[in-house]
Every structure is written in structure tokens, then in C-alpha cells.
């Protein structure tokens, strides 16, 4: 007894020691350790596409996540909610559609759900924080803030307890809202820069609504957050029994009779015992059809009969005749169509399990159920089961069972987390074993061990959102060298005549940071620190095996230089230009507008290494951007379209347009979306939003014509009237006069030999004009004086930060200006074309692209291609093919010239490849491609680590892969 | 001694391979191998693979 007390006391002491660390925060909505192991495949965690009753595709996957765990003194601790099983559908699951859902490895159907919305009032959040907004563990994340006309707008996300969020949204209370968008349907072609900048204070997203009350750059206050929640869900764990319905007669179901009596608006269904004398249940139910509103609260009761005390739920559906007695739908369509002919059938669901959000899992009270709804449709998207209490693994007790699963054979733990070697503060061996006793590799990948037992096993898409903070580090600094995935060789290379607006092969090696591709923090005149970086993208290349050569199509190779946000004039902002720091001087932008045009739904979406179907893109000007209709949903049968602006680089504009017409919360709709959209200077007003096409009434987005920059740092000159300063070798700047109250300065620029003199008054720089700074080019131009005479291109601008100081006026002078003009050859190397990309919000330079207008051919005779020449005449990078046999590339690398040295990348065809697609360097453009292929790339990292090849259809997977749904 | 695994009651030993029979078997194998390879190459060159 005493011993017990002593050990008990010791345990308490230990716990106290543990809690010496800051009180563990709820792991809900938080990410696991950035370097946690990811194992994509474990047989017991399934990942498969099924179809529902109407042939709509449902991509289901399961995963196990461990987060916020810690290892100390030979013990691994996982807080309550730290071990989480996730079953997820990429779309959603709703009643009455026979939507499939995985429940701890078992294929189930969602048959009923109680859907509501939750509204949380008055939530404050500081920049960078993820604050908990409700008891379930939803968090509001303030990711980022930037500005327009010096007014802030903020990027937010609502994170579900599992860690999933569908998209970041931008809101602001400082700008005109979408409803203020004027009729611009008269505009067509290029028009000048528009003054308005739109950002709505309310983000409307189907079933969700987030309204910001007030905010600045560092904190925000939301007056309300409304989002859907699922209170209860009922799953059927077996395939339903389908019986032809016979009117005024009964069908036998086991020992029960099920009668159907025709009524004017449905069938009176009566369930009796075998004799027919005892009525067990009776109800009028209506035959089902595919309309979405039928699962709403007021409606859904009309469509099913649940027999009390019996494991039975009866619905009546139309079953196509050839599918009698089956629920197998062999094809997929993205729209739910009812069957036009067929038989009315009873669909009887059995093996029903009802789970309640926030309550214990029926088979295992150690686990708590979480039901998460799609923020858009409000329907079930995720089922999570998480440990209700903290648990500890140590030498005496090295495993923790997952939740007990329902099984046809025997109910047993769905998985087991084992940590069998903990050495002090490091875990040297831990793994997960599934319900079929299959285990993962040791999740502590190196001998050093880990300080936590975080991990993510399985392919649930939540993986992508949960890694938002760390994915770049994971991919850019691989622990196991530059990963190269071997290609699948086919007779038919994916040939694109021009790769503009398209992404590289998702398996393209990512070289990460490489000397020669700059990346550094720079500070502008206002002291704002921005990351500036450059990189190289090769896309759409292929081996032309009939001619023993490698082809990079036009626009297949581009140099990219980009800052963390757009590059602004008047602030002395810099960007990389082929390895050198360049200072932006001025820019020239317009608004590209189009009206009355159609966009088709992009039905065939890219998958694997197939290039996308491109003829449905709508061009926005020449080599500027395209519009792409990428997603289509029915929200209670009203079509909703997601349209993206795709940049020349192949990346999407940050804000997709979510459009639906005729929805209104006032008229009782469950959903609302704007029927037009405007963010920044980009807007779209549809005439008609259909399921597969949208007719656009008016659309506009910025386009940039040119920018001017210099490699020489601008010099500040403080001049009293009459004073002058040299600007370049041949010119002089003289201040004639200034008027501090009016904010104007009159200056004179002259050639030193006196042969040419020009005078101009800069300004006014007043409160009114400042309201358009720094983005509006009309105001920018009024503050700049450009003097262009062939060899000498110079510019003087007012110092907008401190224009007047101690009775003097301040200027910045720029010399040796160079021009980047859209769609013209780059003057430093005319083999490349300049394709500057504009910020869709604000008309500023977003990205400098230099690409190849002609195909690049590499073969045995020409194994080397030099990239654009830098100022010193050397190419910034070269592509070098080391071993190519006409069919496979066995070795190639990239060389860079940096500080008079040559740097070589790793072999980018370490495993044989059929293209030279590659991502080198790290900037926003490359980040976009990486994020889009994060799941595949992370899985590849794992295959690469262990030297295995992806082969999903082996072992038990082959068995499950051949089971029909 | 009769080898039960390979020899049948007619004395045919399926692992024996000699003489004219070996020659003929080789020939069948060679013809099939060349035919398969040639066909596959033709299929690939004509875009069927």
C-alpha cells in the first residue's frame, strides 16, 4: 500500500514536472511539428475513389495525425486531442445520395446528418495568431496583412479542429465593398488605371460568413463568424438492401413485411412483423430524387422511415433497371442526374451507427467524435476521432490503442501507436500499426531520434492545410538530398505548343535554394522588410524520342524574380534582376477589360503528368493572364462557379471568384455567395452563372506594359531653391522653387553642355494625392520627372516620405534607367522575352519573367543551353545534359555563375526522366507550384527516403483495390 | 530408377531435353520470342502502345 502511495506521489511529481512547460494548449486546429514524418501509405488507412448513387465521384481517405506531443525523461506524452484519426472526403457527404464515407477502414454510407450553423460574435485576433473561437476548437488565423493606398487589408482562415481550412480569405473594412461595384459593362479593351480598390468586409462562402468589424495591420476584430457544423451523423456500415417496390403489396425483408400503399404525394410505408399483424412502424414517405434541398431540416423527414428498435432505415429511390439489387454505379458524372426510367425501389439501410459531435465514440469512450462540415456546402466532410484524455508512452507501457473499429470479423482497435524506444528526451523508435497488423517504418528516421512523436500517416487532404507553415522548409531543405522521381516513359510525350499559363510537371525535381539564384531580405525606404528572390522554372519539356532530342517548348523555360509582395515605385524598392539588385523607378499599367464572353467549365482537369486541357481558357489580353473556370458546385441546385485568374507563370491569382446568382439569406436560402466579385482592381460581373459555363457581362484586371529600373542605388538630394546637383555624368538637377503648403516643387533638368533644358513642377503632394499613393500611376507620374535621351535615361522624384526638410526640398535621383517592356526581347539578352506580371490588386509589378519565345532543343550535339546573360556577360544559369540516350535522360544538372565561381546542382535525373522540368530557387511562383503538388511531393519524399517505388496495388492494397464499392 | 516428379508412366521425362526435341523446342521459343519482340516494337512505333 505504501509502495503504491509512494509511486503515486512520484507520478504526481512527474506530472507536475511535465507541466512545468507552458500549460499545453488545445491541439485543435494546430499543426504538428514541421519536420514530422509523413507516411503516405499504410494498408489499413484507405485512400480510394468511390461513387455515390448518382455516379458522382467521392474521393475518400483516412489518416492518423499526432500533434503537439512531446518526449521527455523516457516518456512520450500526447495531450488530449493530440492523436487524431481523420476520415475525409474531398467533396462532401450528404443524406439521400448514398454518399460513401470511410469509418475506421470500413466502407460506410452517410444516411443522415443534423446540420446547423454556428455563429460566434466579436472575435479579436492579432496578426500571426490562431485564436480558438468556440468549444469545438475552431480557430481564426490572421495570416498576413498588406495594404493598398496605405490602408490595410487582411488575409484570414477559419481552421477546423482537425487543422483543415479550404482557403484563405481577404477582408477589409477600409475599402468600397463588392456591392459598390459600379456598372462597368461599357468598358472594353485597355483603359487607364482605375481609382477604386475593392475589398469586402464580409467574406461570403456558401454556408459560411465572416464579417470583419475593424482592423489594422496587426490586429482584427470580427463582428461575427458564421460557419456550418454537424451535430450528429448516422452511417450505415453495410451496403443497403434494395428491393423492388410493389404497390399495395408487401415485400419480405428478413422476418419483416414492408408494405407500400400509393398516396397522392408518396407512399404510405408500413413495416410489420412476419405475420403482418403487428405494425412496427408506418409513415408516409416520398420517393427520393436528387434535389439538394431535400436534406434540409424542414424537408428531410419526408423521405425516410426509421423503424424504432430495429436496425432499419427505409428510403424509396428510383433504381435503374439494370442495376436492380445493386448499389454499384459504374461511371462518374459531376452533376447529380436522376434516373429517367427504372424501378421504384426500397433502399433499406442497416448496421446503422449514430455518432454525435463532441461525444464519445460508441465503441470506445477513450475517443471523442468530431464532425466537420464543408464551409461551402455545410455537409459532412470529415469525421475525426481523438483521444479524450492525455496519454503517455514509456518503457512499461509502450503502445496506445486507437479507437475500436466496427468490423465484420471482430471489433478491434483500428490502429495502435507504439513508441518502443525512448531514450531520455529522444524517441528512437515509434510506429503505427493498423488493424491488419501492418506497420509503418520506424518514424524516427535518423539515429538522432526525435523530440516528439508527431506524425501524419495516410493521404487525407487535411495534410496540405496542416503543413501551410512548414511545407516550404520540408520541401526546400530535404533531409535526404535533392529528390528526383523517375518518370513513366510513354510513347506519347505530352507536347504543348506553348507553355504559357501552365504548370510544370508535378514530379519536376525541386532544387530549392541554390547559389546563383538570389534570395534575401531587403528593406525599402519605409523600413518594411521584404523577401526578394529569384528562380528558374522549366515546364512542358519532353523527350522527342523519334528525333533523339529534348525539347523545351516556347515559354517552357522562364526566369522568375519576385518579392514577397508587389514592387512599388516611390519607395526605393528593389528586386532581383539576374542576380543583381535592381531598383524600380517607375511603371506603366493599364486595366484590361472584356465584356460579354463565355467561359466553359474546365471539365478535364490535369492529373498526374497530363497537361491540362487548355482550349477552355479565356485570354485576357496578349500574354497577360487567362480566366479559367475550375470548380462547379450545386448549392441546393443553384449553380456556383469558381473562376480563377491564371498568371502567365502558370500560378493562380490569390483570390478565386466564387459566384452564384439568386441566393439570399433573407429569402431563406441555406447558402449565400456574391453574384459578382471584386477584389482590388480586378472585378467580374457575370450575366449568367451556369453549371458548366458562365457568361461574363464585364470583367477587368490590371495589365502592366513596362517598368523602368536601375542597378544604381537612387541618391537622395536635398536642395534649396537655386541649388543644384549632378545627376549622372552629363546632367544636372536644379530646384527652382517649392511650395510646401501646396506640396509642389519646380525643378529644372539640363544637359551639362547647356544644349537642352526642361523644367517641370512636381506634385502636388497633398492629402488628396497621398490617398492614391503609392499605387496610382497618375499620382506617381506627377511626382516623377523622367529625362530620356537615348544613352542617358535619368529620373528625379520627390521624396514622398519627407518631401521638405529644413527649408529644402528632397528628391531621389535615378540614373542609367533600363526598361522592361512587355512582349519585347530583353535588352540584355534578346533570346529571351520580357513578360512582366502585374499584381491583380494594384497595378504594380508583381514578377519579372524572362522566357524563351522559341523552342529550345537539346541533343547529343547541343547538350548545353545558357540562360539569360547577366550584366557581366555570363549566363546566370546553364542547363547541362550529361547523359541522354535519345530516350531517357540519365543525368543532367544546372550550373550557375555566382561571384566568379561555378556552382552545380545535384543530378536532376538521378532516376531516369523523360523531361527536364525543374523548379530552382524559392519564390512565390515556385511556392505556388509546390503547394499544388504538396501531397504527391511529400509522398515522393517518403519513397525517395527508403528507395522504394510507388506501387499502391500490392499486398493488402491490391485486395482492397479490387473490391467494388 | 523412375523419377516420380518428372517421368510419366510412358517414360517421358519432362526435364530431359536433348536431341531433335531440344532443337525443336528451342526453335519454338526463338520464334515466339522474336515474334513477341518484333510485334511489340511495331505496336509501339505505330502508336498502339
Amino acid at each position, binding site marked *: 500500500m505504501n509502495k503504491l502511495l509512494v509511486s503515486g506521489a512520484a507520478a504526481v511529481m512527474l506530472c507536475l514536472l511535465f507541466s512545468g512547460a507552458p500549460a499545453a494548449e488545445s491541439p485543435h486546429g494546430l499543426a504538428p511539428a514541421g519536420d514530422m514524418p509523413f507516411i503516405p501509405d499504410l494498408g489499413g488507412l484507405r485512400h480510394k475513389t468511390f461513387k455515390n448513387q448518382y455516379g458522382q465521384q467521392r474521393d475518400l481517405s483516412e489518416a492518423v495525425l499526432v500533434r503537439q506531443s512531446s518526449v521527455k525523461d523516457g516518456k512520450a506524452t500526447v495531450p488530449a486531442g493530440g492523436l487524431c484519426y481523420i476520415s475525409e472526403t474531398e467533396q462532401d457527404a450528404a443524406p439521400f445520395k448514398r454518399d460513401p464515407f470511410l469509418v475506421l477502414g470500413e466502407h460506410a454510407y452517410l444516411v443522415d446528418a443534423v446540420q446547423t450553423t454556428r455563429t460566434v460574435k466579436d472575435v479579436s485576433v492579432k496578426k500571426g495568431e490562431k485564436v480558438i473561437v468556440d468549444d469545438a476548437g475552431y480557430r481564426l488565423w490572421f495570416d498576413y496583412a498588406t495594404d493598398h493606398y496605405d490602408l490595410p487589408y487582411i488575409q484570414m482562415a477559419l481552421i477546423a479542429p482537425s487543422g483543415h481550412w479550404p482557403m484563405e480569405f481577404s477582408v477589409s473594412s477600409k475599402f468600397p465593398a463588392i456591392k459598390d461595384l459600379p456598372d462597368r459593362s461599357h468598358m472594353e479593351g485597355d483603359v487607364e488605371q482605375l481609382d477604386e480598390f475593392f475589398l469586402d468586409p464580409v467574406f461570403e462562402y456558401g454556408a459560411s460568413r465572416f464579417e470583419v468589424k475593424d482592423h489594422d495591420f496587426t490586429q482584427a476584430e470580427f463582428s461575427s463568424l458564421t460557419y456550418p457544423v454537424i451535430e450528429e451523423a448516422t452511417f450505415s456500415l453495410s451496403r443497403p438492401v434494395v428491393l423492388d417496390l410493389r404497390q399495395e403489396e408487401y415485400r419480405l425483408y428478413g422476418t419483416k413485411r414492408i408494405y407500400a400503399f400509393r398516396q397522392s404525394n408518396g407512399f404510405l410505408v408500413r413495416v410489420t412483423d412476419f405475420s403482418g399483424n403487428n405494425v412496427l412502424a408506418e409513415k408516409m414517405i416520398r420517393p427520393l430524387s436528387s434535389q439538394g434541398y431535400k436534406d434540409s431540416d424542414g424537408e428531410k423527414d419526408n423521405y425516410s422511415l426509421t423503424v424504432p428498435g430495429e436496425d432499419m432505415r427505409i428510403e424509396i429511390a428510383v433504381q435503374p433497371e439494370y442495376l436492380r439489387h445493386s448499389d454499384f454505379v459504374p461511371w462518374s458524372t459531376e452533376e447529380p442526374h436522376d434516373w429517367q426510367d427504372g424501378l421504384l425501389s426500397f433502399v433499406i439501410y442497416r448496421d446503422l451507427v449514430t455518432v454525435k459531435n463532441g461525444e464519445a465514440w460508441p465503441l470506445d469512450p477513450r475517443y471523442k467524435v468530431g464532425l466537420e462540415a464543408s464551409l461551402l456546402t455545410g455537409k459532412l466532410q470529415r469525421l475525426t476521432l481523438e483521444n479524450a484524455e492525455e496519454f503517455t508512452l514509456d518503457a512499461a507501457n509502450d503502445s496506445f490503442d486507437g479507437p475500436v473499429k466496427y468490423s465484420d470479423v471482430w471489433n478491434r482497435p483500428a490502429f495502435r501507436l507504439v513508441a518502443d524506444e525512448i531514450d531520455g528526451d529522444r524517441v528512437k523508435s515509434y510506429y503505427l500499426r493498423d488493424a491488419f497488423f501492418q506497420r509503418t517504418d520506424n518514424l524516427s528516421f535518423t539515429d538522432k531520434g526525435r523530440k516528439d512523436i508527431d506524425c501524419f500517416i495516410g493521404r487525407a487532404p487535411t495534410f496540405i492545410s496542416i503543413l501551410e507553415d512548414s511545407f516550404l522548409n520540408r520541401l526546400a531543405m530535404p533531409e*535526404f538530398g535533392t529528390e528526383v522521381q523517375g518518370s513513366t516513359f510513354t510513347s506519347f510525350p505530352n507536347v504543348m505548343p506553348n507553355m504559357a499559363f501552365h504548370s510544370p510537371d508535378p514530379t519536376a525535381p525541386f532544387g530549392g535554394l541554390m547559389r546563383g539564384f538570389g534570395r534575401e531580405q531587403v528593406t525599402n525606404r519605409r523600413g518594411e522588410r521584404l523577401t526578394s528572390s529569384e528562380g528558374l522554372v522549366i515546364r512542358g519539356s519532353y523527350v522527342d*524520342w523519334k528525333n533523339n532530342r529534348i525539347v523545351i517548348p516556347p515559354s517552357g523555360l522562364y526566369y522568375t524574380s519576385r518579392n514577397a509582395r508587389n514592387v512599388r515605385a516611390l519607395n526605393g524598392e528593389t528586386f532581383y534582376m539576374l542576380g543583381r539588385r535592381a531598383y524600380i523607378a517607375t511603371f506603366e499599367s493599364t486595366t484590361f477589360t472584356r465584356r460579354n464572353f463565355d467561359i466553359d467549365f474546365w471539365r478535364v482537369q490535369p492529373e498526374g503528368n497530363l497537361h491540362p486541357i487548355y482550349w477552355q481558357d479565356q485570354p485576357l489580353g496578349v500574354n497577360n493572364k487567362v480566366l479559367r473556370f475550375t470548380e462547379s458546385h450545386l448549392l441546393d441546385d443553384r449553380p456556383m462557379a469558381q473562376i480563377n485568374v491564371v498568371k502567365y507563370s502558370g500560378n493562380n491569382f490569390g483570390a478565386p471568384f466564387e459566384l452564384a446568382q439568386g441566393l439570399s439569406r433573407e429569402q431563406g436560402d441555406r447558402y449565400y455567395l456574391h453574384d459578382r466579385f471584386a477584389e482590388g482592381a480586378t472585378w467580374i460581373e457575370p450575366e449568367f452563372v451556369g453549371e458548366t459555363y458562365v457568361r461574363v457581362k464585364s470583367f477587368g484586371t490590371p495589365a502592366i506594359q513596362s517598368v523602368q529600373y536601375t542597378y544604381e542605388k537612387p541618391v537622395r538630394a536635398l536642395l534649396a531653391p537655386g541649388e543644384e546637383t549632378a545627376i549622372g555624368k552629363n546632367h544636372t538637377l536644379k530646384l527652382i522653387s517649392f511650395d510646401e503648403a501646396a506640396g509642389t516643387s519646380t525643378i529644372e533638368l539640363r544637359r551639362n553642355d547647356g544644349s537642352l533644358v526642361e523644367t517641370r513642377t512636381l506634385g502636388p503632394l497633398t492629402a488628396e494625392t497621398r490617398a492614391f499613393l503609392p499605387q496610382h500611376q497618375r499620382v506617381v507620374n506627377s511626382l516623377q520627372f523622367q529625362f530620356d535621351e537615348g544613352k542617358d535615361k535619368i529620373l528625379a522624384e520627390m521624396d514622398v516620405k519627407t518631401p521638405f526638410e529644413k527649408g529644402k526640398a528632397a528628391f531621389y535621383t535615378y540614373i542609367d534607367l533600363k526598361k522592361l517592356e512587355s512582349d519585347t526581347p530583353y535588352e540584355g539578352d534578346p533570346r529571351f522575352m520580357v513578360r512582366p506580371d502585374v499584381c491583380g490588386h494594384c497595378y504594380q509589378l508583381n514578377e519579372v519573367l524572362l522566357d524563351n519565345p522559341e523552342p529550345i532543343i537539346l541533343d547529343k550535339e547541343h547538350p548545353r543551353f545558357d540562360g539569360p546573360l547577366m550584366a557581366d556577360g555570363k549566363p546566370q544559369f546553364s542547363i547541362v545534359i550529361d547523359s541522354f540516350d535519345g*530516350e531517357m535522360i*540519365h543525368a543532367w544538372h544546372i550550373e550557375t555563375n555566382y561571384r566568379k565561381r561555378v556552382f552545380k546542382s545535384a543530378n536532376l535525373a538521378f532516376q531516369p526522366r523523360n523531361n527536364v522540368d525543374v523548379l530552382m530557387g524559392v519564390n512565390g511562383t515556385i511556392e505556388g507550384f509546390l503547394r499544388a503538388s504538396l501531397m504527391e511531393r511529400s509522398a515522393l519524399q517518403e519513397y525517395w527516403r527508403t528507395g522504394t517505388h510507388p506501387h499502391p496495388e*500490392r499486398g493488402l492494397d491490391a485486395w482492397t483495390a479490387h473490391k467494388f464499392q | 530408377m523412375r*523419377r516420380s516428379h518428372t517421368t510419366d508412366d510412358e517414360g517421358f521425362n519432362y526435364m530431359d531435353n536433348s536431341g531433335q526435341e531440344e532443337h525443336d*523446342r528451342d526453335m519454338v521459343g526463338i520464334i515466339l*520470342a522474336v515474334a513477341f*519482340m518484333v510485334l511489340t516494337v511495331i505496336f509501339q512505333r505505330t502508336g498502339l502502345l
Partner: protein
Amino acid sequence: MNITYEERRRSFLSCLYSMQESLPGLLAMFFIALFSNNLAGNPNPLTLENLFRWLDAVIGPVNHQQFFQILNSNFVWNPFLMGLIIGNVFGVPDSWKRGLSYIHKLMPLGIIMLAPHFIFSHAEKVGMPLILIAFAVMLFTAVITMLLGKLLRMDDRFYSTVAGALSTGDPHVVAILMPMLKSKGGQVINALGSILLFGLVASFLLPILGHALDMDDKAFAILSVFGIGNTGQMFNSAFGFSYEAGHWAHYVEALRHALMPAGFLFVFFVMFIRARIYRDDENVMATKAHKKLPLFIIVFIIAYIVVQFHVVKEPAHLAIFELVKWDFSLAAAALGLSLPLREIAQWGVRGIVLAFTSGIIRLAVLIGVLLAAAHFNFPLI
């Protein structure tokens, strides 16, 4: 006692026998193959391959590799094992035997179709120094193994099989050499077992030795690939040393594949010429049954030369390789059925002694070369 083949022969197609005679045996092979491997077009998930994969997952990775891969389970091994079990437990019905004799058509068929697998340009990337070293070590191993085998007074068919498979580092080679050398089934399997046992032991011990000798990752990868081979075993060894060595082992493995035909053809021609020289020596058995150079070897060599010019492009090669898998699966089933266990045991432990002795000599030579290269800073890759 019965009509001979020559008597019933009408054309070369007579070796196909009648449908009635051959069908049972063909079906036996077919079903063994069907339940052994996940072959192209085989929808059956209940295969031995899948059972092993599941067991692999239950056992958990060893040095990140699957355990049955380290035991070299593959498309030859699985149906062979199944045939062996069926044959030894239930015996082989007489009705199957005509059909099972198709193994002698399947062997040359499979060997010739392997030619597109050996493309030298896939290995060029590793560079000439390593190609030459690997080639020299391979021939050296073949020679030393054959000499040692003779010294151990082993059957020449047996030791030359060991020599071929050990020097090329590929257990498939025992099957390829079987019709070439005219070796016995028991010898082939005994040789296979000996080499795999050596590889298994070496693959666990070599990383310890590598660390003791402070070898670098690339050198150790080369040591694994050319000192052990046997794909799964060399990865076990290389990944047992380090991740980087594992990756480099993947890289240089292409060279081992490209050199493989040179290795087994070398052994064959040595034995073939020897048999011609010692026509009357009754101890010389390997290749002796060949009156002249077998046609299928000539065809293989021609195909091997032709494919070097990329006549068989990649998806075609994959398709042909799927056929090879089918072919060897069927043949291995027949081979497994043919062998009573005692016939494998009959060749004793001398195969093991030979594999270990030669294997260790090869490792010693390779380590010497690699350490010398490291000493003189000579880059091998």
C-alpha cells in the same frame, strides 16, 4: 518401350504435342503463376506475392526494405516455391508432364526477351572508371569461382552456375544459365540458395564493416551493388549503412544490369570452350550436351546487340518485360514441380562454401580497390 520423339515428329511443331496431352500441365503452370505473382492482366489479388507483401508490412521494414525482398522473393522465386511445395506434398500427376515440358520452350523464349532489359546506355552515367572496375571484378569473380569450384571437386555444371549468378550479382542468372549450361534443377536451386544465403549474411554484416573502415557513402554503395548484388539484399546493405549509400546504390544498379549478360555469357563460353577442348573427359558435363552453339544463345546475342541501338523504346521494353515475367513465372512453376527436396539437398553444402569463399574474396578485392581509390582521391562516380 514407347515411340520416341523422332518417330512421332512431323515438323518442329511436334514438340508442342497434342492439346489433350499438354493442356493439363499448361493449366497447372498457369494456375501456379496466377496465384504466385501479380502478373500483367492478372486480376487475382490472392497471390503469394501479395501474401509476402502483407507479411512484409507486418514484420515491418528492415533497413527500410521489405523483408521478403531481402530474401529475394520475386517473380521467379514465388511460383518456384509454390511448385516445389505442391510437387513435394502432392506429387506431380503424369497427365501434367507433357505440358510441363514446355519449360524448355519458355526458357529460351524468356532469355531472348530479356535482351531489351540490358541497355548499356542506361549505365553510361556512372562513368568509365567504374564501368571498367565493375567489369573486371565481375570477370575476376567468375574466374575465381570456377577455379575454386574445381578445387572443391564440384560438378562443373554446379560451380559454373554459382559463378554466373555470383559474379553478375543476380539470382535470376541461375535460371538463365540452366538451359545454357545444361545444369540440373537441383543444382540450380542449390546454387540459388547458396548465393542468397551469402547475400543475406553479407548484407547485414557489410554495413558494420563499412563503418569500421570509415568508407564514404558512394564507395559503400558501389561495394553493396558489386559485392552483393541481389537487388533487395544490396539495398538492405546500402540503406543499412546510410540513406545516401542507399540512393547511390539505386544509381549504380543500372550498371550491374547492363553488365549482366557479359557475365553469364562469359561463364557460358568458358564452359562451352572447355567442353569442346575436353571432349572425352567424363567429368566435364557443363554445356557438353550442346552439339554446337545453341541457336537461342546466338539469337540472344544478336538481340542484345540490336537493343543497344534503342530499337526497343521504353514502353515496349516494359511490355516485353511483363511477358518475361509471365514466361519465367510459368517456367519456374514447372521447375518447382520437378524437384523433390532431396534433389536439392543432394548437391550438399559445397555450393554454400563456394559462394561464401568467392563472395568474401570478391568483397576483399572490391574493398581494396575502393579504399585505394579513396586514398588517391580518385572519384569513382
